[in-house]
């Protein structure tokens, strides 16, 4: 549980990809509405940094995105989530997952032989 | 070759001196220097040879000095502390003096970032103030800064540069004073366009009693066009060109701007040479040496006195 997106750091976001995520959606409060003053603004900066890292290592920057919503915007949240899922489906599995399944594939072939 | 600087003798005799500047070429062709020098010869008492000005690599100042000296011009070697440590500076001072260069101008040098080798390591072992002091010690006391005796003291008329228009203004005169105390015999100023500010500077120098202690050679640069004025104003740090000056040349049609620039320069020299405390004029006709005779003659400063 995170009390605030301000608690998210780059390492955590990257860990999600290491753990097999194809995309990561970060949802924070509306800018200006942070209970901790500027947690969501910091989160945005960190998401942007991870965006840069993913781009340089060819995992694709589009696999991470930050949204700002208020607690009352349930339907908007659903719409954003759907939109992001669509985007990730279009991109397909992350290169990490592709690499992992193909090595698994090789193993099973070897086993089969 | 006489052992004393011609520039010094002209100034000591009470004449308004004239100096010009010759930038060595970006190459090893001596003819380029000789060609420029031909425009200078006869029109000046001494000619500066720049030292990798704006950190752009050029033929060495000492080589340039020797080439113009062959043509009978009294060379004035510029030396920046950007590229040489105190060992190289001392050595080059000895060499220049041995080869008969009698005038020296001590400078910091523009930062290497402006030149064609911005990746170069800079030196700045001592600063220009200390270079003045070092040359004076090696001349008057005949010793190295280390205290060892020189086999043959330096023979230089020692100068420095000042920019009365740089900031902060309030230290400009104290800084000149420091340079005089360090050992400067003469000073060449940055090109002057803002005459009002320059007059204030000279008045302030007078209050400090500096006018009797150092020969002030006022720097001028003829403008070729309003465009050049605007470019210099924008690109050269510490260059003060008032709007009236830009307007005056800019009001002329393009093809007449160069002539106007020369006319303005001549007027300015005439005004400067009448000013109290001005001992000489330093004409920096950048890549326009062929106009020197017209400018200097136009200002009534030709022929140059010959002092035996």
């Amino acid at each position: 549980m995170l009390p605030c997106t301000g608690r998210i750091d780059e390492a955590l976001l990257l860990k999600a990809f290491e753990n097999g995520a194809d995309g990561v959606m970060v949802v924070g409060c509306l800018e200006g509405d942070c209970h901790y003053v500027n947690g969501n603004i910091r989160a945005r900066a960190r998401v942007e940094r991870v965006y840069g890292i993913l781009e340089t290592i060819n995992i694709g920057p589009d696999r991470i995105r930050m949204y700002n919503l208020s607690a009352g915007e349930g339907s908007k949240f659903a719409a954003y989530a759907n939109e992001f899922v669509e985007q990730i489906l279009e991109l397909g599995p992350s290169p990490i997952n592709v690499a992992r399944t193909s090595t698994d594939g090789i193993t099973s072939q070897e086993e089969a032989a | 070759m006489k052992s004393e600087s011609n520039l010094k003798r002209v100034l000591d005799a009470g004449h308004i001196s004239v100096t010009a500047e010759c930038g060595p070429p970006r190459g090893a062709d001596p003819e380029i220097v000789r060609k420029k020098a031909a425009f200078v010869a006869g029109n000046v008492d001494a000619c500066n040879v720049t030292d990798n000005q704006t950190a752009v690599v050029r033929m060495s100042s000492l080589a340039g000095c020797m080439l113009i000296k062959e043509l009978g011009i009294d060379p004035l070697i510029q030396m920046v502390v950007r590229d040489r440590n105190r060992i190289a500076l001392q050595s080059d001072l000895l060499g220049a003096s041995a080869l008969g260069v009698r005038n020296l101008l001590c400078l910091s040098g523009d930062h290497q970032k402006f030149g064609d080798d911005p990746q170069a390591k800079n030196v700045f072992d001592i600063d220009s103030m200390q270079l003045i002091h070092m040359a004076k010690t090696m001349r008057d006391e005949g010793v190295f800064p280390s205290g060892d005796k020189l086999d043959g003291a330096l023979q230089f008329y020692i100068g420095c540069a000042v920019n009365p228009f740089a900031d902060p203004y309030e230290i400009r005169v104290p800084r000149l004073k420091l340079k005089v105390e360090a050992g400067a015999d003469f000073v060449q100023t940055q090109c002057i366009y803002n005459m009002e500010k320059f007059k204030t500077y000279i008045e302030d120098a007078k209050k400090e009693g500096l006018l009797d202690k150092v020969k002030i050679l006022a720097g001028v640069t003829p403008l070729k066009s309003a465009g050049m004025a605007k470019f210099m104003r924008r690109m050269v740090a510490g260059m003060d060109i008032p709007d009236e000056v830009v307007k005056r040349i800019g009001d002329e049609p393009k093809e007449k701007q160069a002539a106007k620039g020369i006319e303005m320069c001549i007027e300015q020299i005439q005004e400067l040479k009448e000013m109290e405390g001005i001992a000489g004029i330093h004409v920096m006709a950048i890549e326009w040496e062929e106009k020197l005779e017209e400018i200097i003659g136009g200002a009534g400063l030709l022929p140059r006195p010959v002092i035996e």
Partner: protein
Amino acid sequence: MITGTPKPIGEILEMVEPYDKIIVAGCHGCVTVCRVGGEKEVQVLASTIRLAREAGGRKIEIKEVSLERQCDPEYVELMRPYVEDYQAVLSIACGAGIQFLAEKFTVTPLLPGINTGFLGVTERQGEWAERCQGCGDCVLHLTGGICPVTRCAKSLFHGPCGGSVQGVCEVDKDIKCGWQLIIDRLKALDQMDNYGKLKPYKGWSSARDGGPRRILREDMI
């Protein structure tokens, strides 16, 4: 503190290319404060390398460690028990720390993960600026507490040069003229007399020009 900037990730990936099992080592000293070489940066860098390598089809095993200081032997020794189980150490401490590891662990290649910068201060979060060049003979008492060696682009001792315009150095519009700062401060302190004195040539032998330096405190040995 000693500051630095991360090396580009491409450069780091190239450095670790030959290895499959490395340590990424951070330091809790200066580099943690200027956010290039602390525990967090170790995590981010290790994750990034793992992701990049795995995406490229060749996994890498990384041990993440952060020492209290990489420049003190007692902390460095803590790595000794396991360091030889790894093919290389990628350190994101300053150049001194990295070298110290290299010196102590003689058979393990050491790779620099940051470009060490300068001795500086945090002007505000995310902005650091140089203040001292460690010249070995401090003159701050004469220059209003502002270092001419460091803050003047030409290390002048009798500035400012002719390139100083409205407090800005000729080198870059974002660099303040060190000598304007010195003068402002001397004026505020009523110490302008210091300005008017010719200063002796700086002795650089106490700086790096005298060769690598060493401090020996007999009373502490």
